[in-house]
């Protein structure tokens, strides 16, 4: 059983606590026997223990509590009145339950104690006519708890083990057998034969000799029952908030401290610093729970699913003790279950298929969790067939998530990521498990919602690993503090969204920003990075560069939902641990901020919601890779709205509006006419220390030759290691558009007409064009 020990331990802790309450409940019941709700409360406790005991396979415990429960139920329904006899009987049962629990705690087993006498007594008590039959308790009712104690110690004489009170009273039983087995019973419990059950149960269990060292018993007892305190989660949350305040106050003090020089102050402040950090860590720990708490639910899910799918699956777990904030634990529960279900349904093959492939018939699903530099990584791997990329690709095109062109260029990893696209499912058949295409995208959204990330690695034939990167906590996050509007406004950008910082100085700060139509972009290692000016997008006072000063451009490159863009700010101030506070319902419609925080100087700063800001500013999505390779083009329209794609619009004299998919464009350049040279039959240009061949679109497609004295707009395109420039008339805009109804137009194999944003647009098939052109050139050169 997975986590069986854990379950039992929890059961023990909980039961011990409940039993302690029961004692009080019984006592107060005796004072006011009419208190129905008290009885109901006791009933519930016993019922819970019974249920859990039955579930965990502790049959004696179950049998005993069952009898007690019946009795309590009669009391609760009013068919029986509470008499001291009944109270005693029930208390005896409670003591017996304690004993059993202790045995379980120490040995993992219930022991072979015989409860027949007590059970018989409880039964007798439950017969309405005869509630007074089990008589003698009548004379030892008021301190019912003490009676077993007394009785027990009388019986056993002085077993060397114990002298402790109530709960331990029953403990001697286990040692009693060793001392004086059978005889003990008759002698001590003779007179009130069925009655003095106080001693009866104590004596009956005689047979067994489960006898762990008594000292150890006591130690263990306290370790489980007393070393845990149940705390209201709200208390923890409050504590967490207060610690948050303390962190802020400390930050303030630190800032203040930098102004003085007093040695004493410095060292005190440093001390405070340390203590605060430790306190913060400590309080965070109280909210931490092992991830195993969530994992424990999975084996069952896996088993049921494996049966449904007719597969054999074994589940492995590594790092189940990895601790994670409970709020986050709650948030990843469903996504995790989903991933596991998906792995079994789609990932693992059926036993026969596996056998045919020479793999063990039983598939292995492994879960791994580990702390990793302020994050938690959780991996769900299967050793199944891996993701069938062909099928994913076909499906993606079918669903309009990718164009065939994009499919041809997409990297395997990005293609794998397509399974997280909305409405995507590769299951050939919709099963009741999965295949309806909801799920994996929800997984991704939910993980990203809490600041996490999803990654996928798949080896054909060897399996798939889905990796989740999750922040440790939500309440306190590291953030970059930036300023804008001439330093008047400060904003916090969560570190989780941060990619890099770029600072351009002097001439570069001016020439580094280019405009495609009115949209500013920057080149970052060969890729076009859309820019957002924070002051503009937030409609703040624009930053003014003082005349004469050295121009500087600070760009914070951020990423959200796979959109990468540059945020232009005035200054980059600091990184700080900030406490995220909600903005309140007044600002419900405001999506550009994720919350607010209090800065070191006591002022409030807003936390930028990068995704919200991007949406607000409608950042272009140039669909470029993260700068690693020009060919490694990310095409995740998937995470965008269905089949919209970014198109570069340009004008060619004599043609209607023309467009190429932006993701096929490497770079955009503008060349002065005198830079274009003729080499042999070719027109070339010196470009980045290489010779760039130019293809003049108007020559191929026909049209008016652009005026020779104007600069030429050139699209730089790479294919198979060759880079060419395509001179187009004038680049006008980049739009996010839906390409509808692309149909070939008559005169050129390179053009298709489509409707983009309601206007007829000629879409240039740049791949075909360049390839055919390169062939021609080779022919010419030969």
């Amino acid at each position, binding site marked *: 059983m997975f986590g069986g020990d854990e379950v039992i331990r929890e059961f023990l802790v909980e039961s011990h606590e409940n039993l302690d309450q029961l004692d009080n409940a019984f006592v107060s019941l005796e004072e006011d026997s009419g208190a129905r709700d008290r009885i109901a409360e006791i009933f519930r406790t016993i019922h819970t223990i019974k249920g859990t005991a039955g579930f965990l396979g502790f049959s004696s415990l179950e049998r005993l509590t069952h009898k007690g429960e019946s009795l309590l139920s009669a009391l609760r329904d009013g068919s029986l009145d509470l008499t001291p006899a009944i109270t005693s009987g029930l208390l005896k049962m409670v003591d017996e339950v304690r004993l059993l629990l202790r045995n379980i705690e120490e040995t993992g087993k219930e022991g072979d104690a015989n409860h027949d006498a007590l059970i018989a007594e409880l039964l007798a008590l439950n017969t309405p006519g005869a509630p007074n039959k089990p008589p003698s308790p009548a004379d030892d009712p008021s301190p019912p708890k003490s009676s077993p104690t007394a009785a027990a110690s009388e019986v056993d004489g002085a077993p060397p083990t114990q002298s402790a009170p109530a709960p331990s009273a029953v403990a001697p039983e286990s040692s009693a057998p060793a001392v004086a087995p059978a005889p003990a019973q008759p002698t001590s419990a003779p007179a009130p034969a069925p009655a003095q059950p106080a001693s009866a149960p104590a004596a009956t269990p005689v047979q067994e000799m489960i006898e762990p060292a008594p000292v150890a018993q006591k130690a263990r007892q306290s370790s489980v029952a007393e070393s845990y305190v149940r705390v209201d989660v709200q208390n923890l949350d409050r504590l967490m908030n207060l610690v948050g305040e303390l962190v802020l106050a400390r930050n303030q003090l630190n800032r203040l401290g930098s102004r003085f020089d007093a040695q004493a102050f410095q060292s005190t402040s440093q001390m405070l610093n340390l203590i605060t950090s430790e306190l913060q860590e400590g309080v965070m720990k109280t909210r931490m729970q092992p991830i195993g708490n969530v994992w424990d639910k999975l084996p069952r899910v896996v088993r049921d699913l494996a049966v449904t799918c007719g597969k054999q699956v074994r589940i492995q777990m590594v790092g189940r003790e990895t601790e994670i904030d409970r709020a986050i634990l709650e948030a990843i529960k469903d996504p995790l279950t989903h991933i596991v279900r998906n792995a079994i349904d789609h990932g693992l093959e059926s036993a026969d298929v596996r056998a045919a492939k020479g793999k063990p018939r039983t598939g292995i699903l492994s879960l791994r969790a580990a702390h990793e530099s302020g994050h938690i990584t959780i991996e769900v791997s299967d050793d199944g067939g891996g993701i069938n990329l062909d099928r994913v690709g076909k499906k993606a095109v079918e669903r309009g998530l990718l164009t065939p062109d994009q499919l041809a260029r997409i990297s395997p990893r990005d293609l794998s990521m397509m399974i997280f696209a909305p409405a995507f499912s590769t299951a050939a058949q919709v099963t009741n498990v999965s295949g309806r295409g909801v799920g994996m995208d929800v997984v991704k959204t939910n993980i990203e919602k809490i600041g996490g990330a999803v990654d996928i690695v798949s080896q054909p034939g060897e399996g798939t690993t889905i990796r989740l990167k999750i922040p440790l906590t939500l309440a306190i996050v590291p953030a970059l503090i930036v300023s804008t509007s001439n330093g008047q*406004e400060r904003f916090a950008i969560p570190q989780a969204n941060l990619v890099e910082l770029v600072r351009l100085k002097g001439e570069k700060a001016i020439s580094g920003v280019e405009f495609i139509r009115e949209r500013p972009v920057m080149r970052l290692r060969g890729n076009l990075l859309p820019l957002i000016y924070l002051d503009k997008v*937030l409609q703040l006072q624009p930053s003014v560069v003082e005349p004469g000063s050295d121009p500087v451009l600070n760009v914070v490159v951020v990423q959200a939902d796979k959109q990468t863009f540059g945020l232009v700010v005035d200054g980059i101030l600091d990184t700080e641990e900030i406490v995220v506070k909600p903005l*309140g319902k*007044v600002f419900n419609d405001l999506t550009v901020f994720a919350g607010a*925080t209090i800065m070191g100087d*006591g002022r409030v700063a807003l936390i930028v919601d990068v995704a919200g800001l991007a949406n607000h500013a409608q950042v272009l999505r140039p669909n470029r890779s993260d700068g690693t390779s020009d060919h490694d083009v990310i095409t995740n329209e998937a995470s965008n709205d269905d089949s919209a794609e970014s198109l570069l619009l340009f004008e060619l004299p004599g043609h209607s509006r023309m467009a190429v998919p932006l993701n096929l464009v490497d770079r955009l350049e503008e060349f002065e006419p005198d830079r274009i040279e003729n080499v042999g039959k070719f027109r070339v240009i010196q470009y980045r220390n290489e010779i760039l061949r130019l293809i003049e679109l108007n020559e191929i497609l026909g049209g008016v030759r652009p005026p020779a004295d104007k600069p030429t707009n050139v699209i730089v395109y790479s294919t198979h290691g060759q880079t060419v420039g395509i001179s187009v008339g004038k680049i006008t805009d980049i739009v996010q558009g839906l390409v509808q109804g692309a149909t070939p137009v008559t005169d050129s194999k390179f053009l298709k007409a489509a409707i983009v944003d309601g206007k007829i647009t000629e879409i240039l098939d740049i791949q075909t064009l360049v390839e055919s052109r390169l062939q021609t050139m080779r022919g010419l050169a030969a």
Partner: protein
Amino acid sequence: MTATSTEAGLICTFYLDGQCYGVDVAHVQEVVRHQEMTAVPLASPSVGGLINLRGQIVAAIEMRHRFGLPVRPAAKLPMNVVIQSDLSAISLLVDEIGDVIDVTNIPFERPPDSTGSAKGLVERVYKLDNQLLFVIDVNRTVREEPAHSEGTSHA
């Protein structure tokens, strides 16, 4: 015509552009002097900003804007009347704080329909000796958009 009636209670009064307004003291958490505010870009124009109230971040509503009054002269710093509405704590930015008035025995009227931009926000009108006192409905004041954009407000 509007009927007069009375309602027991204490009213915390404040002034906006010379006019006396008030809120039921039961709603008022505290009154604090001017606090440094952080503007919230792109928020509704009646939001004055955010203040740090002993570690709690509280949104401040510019009451002059709310009532369609002229903008407060820059030299005059607003006071914060922090109230507990059903949307948590909110600060009302006002010109000045007045007295707390016991209105238990003073008859009030419902505002006439033509209170202009303050329509719907004023709950009761008291005729005091030398002035009118407009008692505002705190929850509506906080929740609804300013009167001039009432068409788009969500009830």
